[in-house]
């Protein structure tokens, strides 16, 4: 069985290597090489395109994210925002383009190595482990740091114990940071929606990522919950220095929270700049008025 797990590990590694070696277009590559060599660029996308059947979810999207910024990505429903995050986290594979994460360039990001690349994320639709307690859900966020084998765990050997203790300590810190103490030992599936969203943020933060991808962390929340969550997101950046990509429909939240905003519409990036610049951009105004979304509260 050890052989087999080695085999599985080798398989994972091989797919990573092939992902790294895959070739892409040279022009974008040069741009990407220039960007990813800059130490202040955490993430650089170049010429990203993906389609599903006939639907072009993204075409030719460039994006760079600098250290310590909160980078919002907005756009109407179906604009391709989630697809973008899914490509960065390796869950979707782009048809075209390259992704550079912290100086390493990929055409397909290896999802299984994402945590070790220093990237953590939350999901638009909750993706918690319903059968685990809040604390254990959060502790899972550090699973990529574990080394002890299952035998060490069963036997309770020192390495397994010290791992557990270290992770428990980190978990406690995050639990306190996000004010989850009162529910820490409850099964996560029994929590209200807003709290589950917060647990997901906790699970991502406990990994101490360099880059955090948040896909609509405030969707479906009340105004108070939103404000609270926005506070947590900002505090995460300010205290832990995490770089954040934030997808959010609530324009008010976005404008107040982010340093730069990229706007997607029908899979294309139609604007990119500071909140003030984007707010004044005629293309953005057109895209938003064109879709006439009532549900998302404020318009521009």
């Amino acid at each position, binding site marked *: *069985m050890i052989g087999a797990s080695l085999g599985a590990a080798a398989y994972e590694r091989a797919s990573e290597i092939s992902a790294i070696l895959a070739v892409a277009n040279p022009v974008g590559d040069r741009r990407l090489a220039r960007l990813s060599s800059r130490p202040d660029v955490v993430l650089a996308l170049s010429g990203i395109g993906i389609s599903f059947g006939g639907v072009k979810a993204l075409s030719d999207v460039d994006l760079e994210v600098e250290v310590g910024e909160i980078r919002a990505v907005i756009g109407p429903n179906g604009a391709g925002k989630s697809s973008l995050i899914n490509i960065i986290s390796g869950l979707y594979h782009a048809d075209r383009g390259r992704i550079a994460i912290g100086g390493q360039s990929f055409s397909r990001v290896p999802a*299984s190595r*994402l945590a070790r690349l220093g990237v953590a994320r939350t999901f638009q639709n909750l993706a918690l*482990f*319903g*059968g685990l307690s809040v604390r254990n859900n959060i502790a*899972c966020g550090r699973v990529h740091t574990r080394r002890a084998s299952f035998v060490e765990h069963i036997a309770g050997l020192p390495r397994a114990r010290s791992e*557990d203790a270290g992770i428990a300590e980190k978990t406690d810190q995050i639990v306190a940071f996000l004010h989850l103490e009162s529910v820490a030992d409850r099964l996560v599936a029994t929590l209200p929606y807003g709290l589950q969203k917060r647990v997901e943020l906790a699970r991502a933060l406990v990994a101490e990522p360099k880059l955090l991808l948040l896909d609509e962390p405030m969707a479906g929340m009340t105004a108070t919950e939103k404000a609270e969550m926005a506070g947590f997101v900002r505090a995460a950046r300010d205290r832990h220095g995490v770089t954040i990509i934030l997808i959010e429909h609530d324009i008010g939240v976005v404008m107040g929270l982010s340093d730069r905003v990229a706007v997607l519409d029908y899979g294309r990036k139609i604007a990119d700049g500071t909140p003030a610049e984007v707010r004044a951009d005629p293309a953005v105004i057109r895209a938003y008025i064109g879709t006439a979304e009532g549900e998302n509260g404020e318009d521009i």
Partner: protein
Amino acid sequence: MAVQALDAARLPVDWAKLVQKLALATALFVVAYGVVPAYASGYLVEAILLPFLALSLAAVGLNLLTGYCGQLSLGSSAFMAVGAFGAYNFNLRVEGLPLAVTMILAGISAAGFGVVFGLPSLRLRGFYLAVSTLAAQFFVQWALTKFGWFSNDNPSGVISAPHLAVAGLSLDSATGRYLLSVTTVMVLTALVWRLVNSATGRNFIAVRDNETAARVIGVPVLRTKLLAFAISSFIIGIAGVLWAFTYLRTVEPAGFNLDRSFQILFIIIIGGLASIRGAFWVRRSSLSSRSFCPGSAHSCSAACSIRAFST
């Protein structure tokens, strides 16, 4: 150290609960090693306790894979067969191999098979995986019947239990076999208990509840699935040894058929997926209810399983 101190401070020890747990454990030991060997009738041991123990252990193994890791397997009895025939052959072909070593080797053989037939789980999900585990079921049964080597050239593939002894102490009597069985089951169940409450067990649950999220946060999904297949098959394999050596004493490959696999599946469904204790309760109740259920042996437990779902 500081952390452990903190832990203790946060969770005040619940003495009443601790005492209760200790009392339960003691009672279990007294019954298992005192009351039953001393007072249980031969019939009770031979016809009820021995199959109960073996199948419960198999259910514990399957539960690890299906209940905790979320990989539905329909071929459990194939792994029981591998364990049983493996033990038979190790015992036959290696002179003077201690019983414990034989059993562990048999378990490892089953684990090896488990990994091989678990490989499709790396690419397949849900029903596609479930159907592919049927391949294990039919292939193993066929191979054991077809190749005489496995049964030392018995024409119908039947094997008989060897003389059972630990440290020169014969365990061939009903009580001896019971003690072997109950000890094995208790040790393995305790180990599984520790496993599912460890980080590895939580990885199993993470893969079950949300494979995509698990992968993204760094759970080694492929390795976790194979590990679940390996450990689960190891336990089911040893359950097969108990089934063949302590309960039936003579078995043929056809005894490890699809019905047996489904029976084990029903046990874990009724007992509650991802519940170790459930594996034992159900086995007991379905045994006691069998006498009221003529006709198809399974329909009764099947009915219960449907009821268990709807509640």
